[in-house]
């Protein structure tokens, strides 16, 4: 279509609106990205400064043969997919539920926001010592009263992963809940009129009317929560430190430990770059499905 004056004005308006935000982002994120990529191609290890120099793709090759890296990759995928799915399922269900309760919604909304408001490092510590510690913690008290016995929630490798997924889900589901609540609330009620007249059941109404309408919001929540899960740090670090062994060492944590504890900045940067690539790939996939079959 030929660009009319109207469209040109729209374009200029759009760019004017977008420019400030874009400028800030370009300014502040380009240099670090370049540094990250550069560092990943270097041999940069603070504990062995005599080895410093250009390394080409050596860091990436090392990664391929590093079992701890593959372990962290698998853990990341499991951790991220579990917690995001749980968050959306529970958050959406809760939102739908709350919508049907006219009174006390304010109270419910405030209660829902509490987990996110608590500082992550406090969350990790509290869960580690006061809630999940075997024989000393609350969860153990509950399971023992219920006859399910005492378990080492954070000390057993399998249970530890489940525990940190639980902690992260606990902390972030309220986000999905509130965002989807606000989205559901903006749906005009008359769209259900026709369906009701057709005597469509509640589930059918949900599946064919509500769901398609909130799909973009749901996908956006999924994308944002995925990005948070991929870069989860403070709570999991305080709760398990990546342990026991490397049972909860997601890629982000592995990159942190490599850069800041083992001081191998070059390799750590390479790991971070891989994490970035992974995040972009996953987001792009989800992004494309946002509009889906319109």
């Amino acid at each position: 279509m030929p660009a009319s004056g109207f469209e040109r004005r729209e374009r200029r308006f759009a760019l004017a609106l977008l420019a400030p935000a874009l400028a800030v982002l370009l300014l502040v994120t380009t240099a670090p990205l370049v540094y990250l990529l550069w560092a990943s191609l270097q041999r940069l290890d603070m504990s062995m400064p005599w080895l410093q120099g250009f390394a080409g793709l050596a860091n990436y090759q090392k990664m391929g043969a590093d079992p701890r890296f593959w372990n962290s990759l698998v853990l990341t995928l499991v951790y991220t997919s579990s917690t995001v799915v749980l968050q959306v399922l529970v958050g959406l269900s809760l939102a739908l539920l709350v919508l049907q309760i006219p009174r006390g919604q304010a109270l419910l909304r405030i209660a829902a926001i509490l987990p996110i408001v608590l500082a992550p490092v406090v969350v990790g510590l509290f869960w580690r010592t006061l809630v999940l510690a075997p024989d000393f913690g609350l969860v153990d008290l509950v399971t023992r009263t219920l006859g399910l016995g005492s378990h080492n929630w954070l000390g057993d490798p399998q249970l530890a992963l489940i525990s940190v997924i639980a902690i992260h889900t606990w902390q972030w589901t309220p986000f999905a809940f509130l965002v989807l609540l606000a989205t559901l609330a903006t749906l005009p009620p008359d769209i259900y009129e026709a369906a009701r007249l057709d005597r469509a059941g509640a589930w059918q109404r949900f599946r064919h009317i509500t769901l398609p309408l909130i799909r973009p919001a749901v996908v956006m929540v999924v994308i944002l929560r995925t990005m948070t899960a991929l870069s989860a740090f403070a709570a999991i670090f305080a709760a398990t430190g990546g342990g026991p062994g490397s049972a909860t060492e997601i890629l982000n944590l592995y990159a942190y430990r490599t850069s800041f504890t083992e001081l191998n900045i070059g390799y750590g940067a390479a790991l971070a770059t891989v994490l970035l690539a992974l995040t972009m790939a996953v987001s792009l996939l989800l992004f494309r499905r946002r509009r889906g079959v319109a």
Partner: protein
Amino acid sequence: MIAGRGPGALARRLALAAVAGLLLSVWAFPVLWALLTSFKSERDVLAYPPVWWFEPTLEHYREVLFGASSILPNLWSSVVVASVTTVGTMLLALPAAYAVARLRYPGRRASGFYVLATQMLPPVGLVIPYYLALQKAGALDTYGGMVLIYLTFSLPFAIWLMVSYFEDVPPEMEEAALLDHAGRLGAFWHVVLPQVRGGIAVTTVFVFLNAWNEFLFAVVLGGNKVRTVTVAMFNFISVEQTLWAKLAAGAMVAMAPVILIGLLAQRHIVKGLTVGAVKGGGRR
């Protein structure tokens, strides 16, 4: 979407309320437990089985607010950092999100994805370059520096959250406004923005929250002048011991401003809800 009338409906409503109540108490329980802990003496904190009835004490709040390791100055730091970040973010994000959601211009999809992509940079990889950059600019341990860095993860987040809300606004409303010669800016300001009030409220809360709870950048790029509550929390996690009750009290105090923001913002979420909740429209 309220459950209809009739006795079956009442039972259903009660059941729903019970389920919601149960779920939410599970959610809020750890926080409530922390609240309880903040009033216990240090001895009782780790007592097992847990102590439910005890002599409450205010000494931890006294210590946390006025004592030698008072976190009041840190509270102030956090308030400044989080508020400025939030205001800055919303000012930049709202127009940008509208552009991405509604307007047509070349490179729309690409710029949209670029914005999202900037948030994908893992903080782990960013700490060192940010430290070096801020140091060269003399902006380490300054509010300006910290806010600028915080913008990098707040902006993309806020933009993309708002995009969904903008997309939900029926295009007919804007077209009507344009036909009235309101101009694009007018349409945006007078017609579209009020529609997404609920979305703005939610986004504001979360942007504020993310800035408030951030730890890694706060500890590395901050110092004595800019020391937020997340860092100050460690005053109570000293090397010798964790002062659980004081930590809990500190956490409660640190949560207070955010709850306040939440309370203020949620009224706007309510407005959105009222429109949808009552069948047949109408306002309360």
